[in-house]
C-alpha cells in the first residue's frame, strides 16, 4: 500500500477550518522512504486517530529521504517518529506504532497510570 501525501492534505483541508485551535491535533509522522515500517506506522496512526480523534486531527507525513534537511531542523534520529506538534507540549513517539496503548499514552490520550492498569 502506498501513502498518498495529497490524500492527507485533502483530509486536513476538510477538518481544519471547522475546529478551534485548542482542539486541533497536529501530528507529524517522519519516515525515511516508503518502506514497510513507514506504511505500518501510518496505518496504525490512521486507525488510532480515526478512533480517538476523529475529525480534529491532521497528519503530515514527512519523508526525510525527500527532504533531508528536515531531519536536522526537527531533530529527528529514529524513524518512524511521530511528533505531536499540537496540542503543546510536543511529544515524541518512535516506532511503527504497533503498540496501541503506548501510542495512546505517548499522545497523552491515556494516562500512564491508566495504561498500567490496562
Amino acid at each position, binding site marked *: 500500500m502506498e501513502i498518498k501525501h495529497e490524500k492527507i492534505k485533502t483530509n486536513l483541508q476538510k477538518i481544519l477550518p471547522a475546529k478551534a485551535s485548542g482542539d486541533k491535533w497536529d501530528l507529524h509522522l517522519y519516515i525515511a522512504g516508503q518502506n514497510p515500517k513507514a506504511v505500518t506506522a501510518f496505518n496504525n496512526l490512521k486507525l488510532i486517530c480515526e478512533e480517538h480523534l476523529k475529525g480534529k486531527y491532521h497528519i503530515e507525513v514527512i519523508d526525510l529521504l525527500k527532504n533531508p534537511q528536515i531531519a536536522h531542523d526537527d531533530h529527528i534520529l529514529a524513524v518512524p517518529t511521530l511528533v505531536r506538534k499540537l496540542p503543546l507540549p510536543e*511529544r*515524541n513517539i518512535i516506532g511503527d506504532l504497533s503498540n*496501541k496503548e503506548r501510542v495512546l499514552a505517548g499522545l497523552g490520550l491515556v494516562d500512564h497510570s491508566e495504561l498500567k492498569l490496562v
Partner: protein
Amino acid sequence: MKKKERPSHRNILPKSPTSIQGLDEITGGGLPKGRPTLICGGAGCGKTLFAMEFLVRGATLYNEPGVFISFEETEKELTANVASLGFDLDNLVEHKKIWLEHIHVERGEIEQSGEYDLEGLFIRIHLAIESVGAKRVVLDTIESLFAVLPNQLILRTELRRLFQWLKRKGVTTIVTAERGEGAFTRQGLEEYVSDCVILLDHRVNDQSSIRRLRIVKYRGSTHGTNEYPFLIDEDGFSVLPVTSLGLNYSSSHERISTGIPRLDTMLSGKGYFRSSTMLVSGTAGTGKTSIASQFAEAACKRGERVLFFTFEESPSQLMRNMLSIGIDLQPWVKKGLLQFHATRPTLYGLENHLTTSIKLINKFEPNIVIVDTINGFMVGENQTEVKTMLLRLVDFLKMKQLTAFFTSLTSETENLSIPDVDISSLIDTWLLVRDLEIGGERNRGLYVLKSRGMAHSNQIREFRLTNHGIELLDVYVGSEGVLTGSARLSQETKDDAEQLLRQQEIGTKQFGLERKRDAMEAQIVVLRSEFQAEEAEALKVITIEKARNERFTQDKIKMGKSRRGDVSIKTTGTKKKKYI
C-alpha cells in the same frame, strides 16, 4: 583471484594522519583511513578535543573536510570550547571545511511503540558529509543515545549498521565513548568498532595529574604498545613518545668553545662538539651554574641563541650572582640572544615540564639549551619516569641538532648520583666538579669524566672562580699527593726553593768542569810542543843516516871501478844477497 589478493596483504594499511604531535609516530602514520576508530576514556580525559583536533588538522593541513556530530555539546558550545586551543571553528565552518552537527537528544521524553530504526540519524550524517565532502567524521559521544532511546537491541543493531555504513562510505571515523567499569566502554562499543581502539587515561599521582594514551588495538598495523603521556594545552593535544626518533640523527664536526680557554684545551683544544650533550655534575656550590653561564656567555658572544632553564634561581638572582665572577649576562638578555625560563620544579608534572620545555625551544629556536639543574625534573620518586623524560628531552634536542648543557646536583656522600648514572649513556661530554678538601681548605677540582669522539685530558684541574670568570689551574701532583689551594701554593714555594738550590749546585759543578777542561787543554799544548821537538830531532838523525848510506854506496862503486873488477854490480838488492 588469489594471486591478485596477495600483494594487497603486503601493502601498508592506508592511514589518515592526525598531525597530533607524537601520535602519528606511535601509530605509524595515523588512524586507519576509511575505518572507524574508538577513543575511550573517563570524563575530562580529552576525548572531544582529540577528535576535534583530528578534524581541524585534517581540514587545515590535509584538505580533508570533516563532520563533527555532537550528541552532547551544541555547535556554539563546541566552537567556544575549542577556541581556547586556537581552533577557529567559525571560520572553518564558514569555508565549508568543517560541519558541526549537534544532535539534540532529550532524555526521557520519547515513547516507543513498535520497531524503529535510526534512519533519521543516517540521513543527517549523510547530509552533513555531502555538504562539505567530508573525509573525516566524528561521533561524540554516540553512547548518549543509549540513555535516550528505548530498546537497546534495536539500538545496537542500528549502531552496528551505522559503523558499517560509514566504513562503506570510506570516511575515517572517530567514535568517542566513556570508559566503563571493567570494559573499555560502558556500552561495549569496542565490539562494533574494532579496527582501532585508543584509550585515554587521566590519573593523579603524587598530587600531579598525568594524562596517558594507549593504543589498545590497531588491526592490521604495528603500533607502539606503551602508555604514552600526553598533554592538552593552548596548542592542543600532544603525545610524547619515549623514543620515537631512533638514533638516526646526524652529528656535527663543528667544535664550540666552552668559554673557558683551559677547558677547551682539556677537550683536545677546541671545546665541545656542536649539537652534543654535556653534563656537569657536582655537589652543591661547586660552580656548575658558573660553568653553564660562562658557556652561555661565550655562545652569545658568537651571536648564538641560548635558552636557559633555571629551576633553582630566578633569572635576576642568577645574573646578579654571575656578575660577581665577571660574567655579565644582562646585555645578551636585552639583545634577545639569551632567554631565561625559570620555574619551580614542583609546579608541574614531568610531562608538563617536558612539553613546556619543548614548546619554548620550538618558539625561541635557540642554538644552545641549558638546563640548570636536571634535578629540577625529579619531582616524584619514580626514577624510571625521570629517565625516560630526560631521554625524550635529549632525543628531541638531538633531533633538533641543538647543543644541550645540563647540570646535575650530586649528593655529598656519593660521587655520582643515581640520575647521573641513569642518563650517562645519553651524555657526550661529562664534566665532574669535585670538592677537594686538603689542609683545612675546600677547593674545587674539575675533570673530564668522558668526552665522546675527542682526545681529552685525563688531568684533574683546579677550578677557580675569579672576578674575571672561571680559571683552571694545574693541580700540584707530586710526592705529597694532589694539592690544591694554599696547600698547592706552599708546596710550590717549597719546590721553588729546592729548585734554586739544585740550580746553584749544578752551577758549581759546571764551573769545576770548565776548569778541568782548561787544565787538560794546557797539558795538551805542553805535550804537543815536546813531541814536536822530539820529532825534529828524529828527522835530523834520519836525514844524516840517509846521507851516510848514500855516500857508502857511491864509495863502493868507486872502489870497484878503481879495482877494475869484471863483475858489474847491478842493483843494491842483489848486492845485499851477495853479501849474505
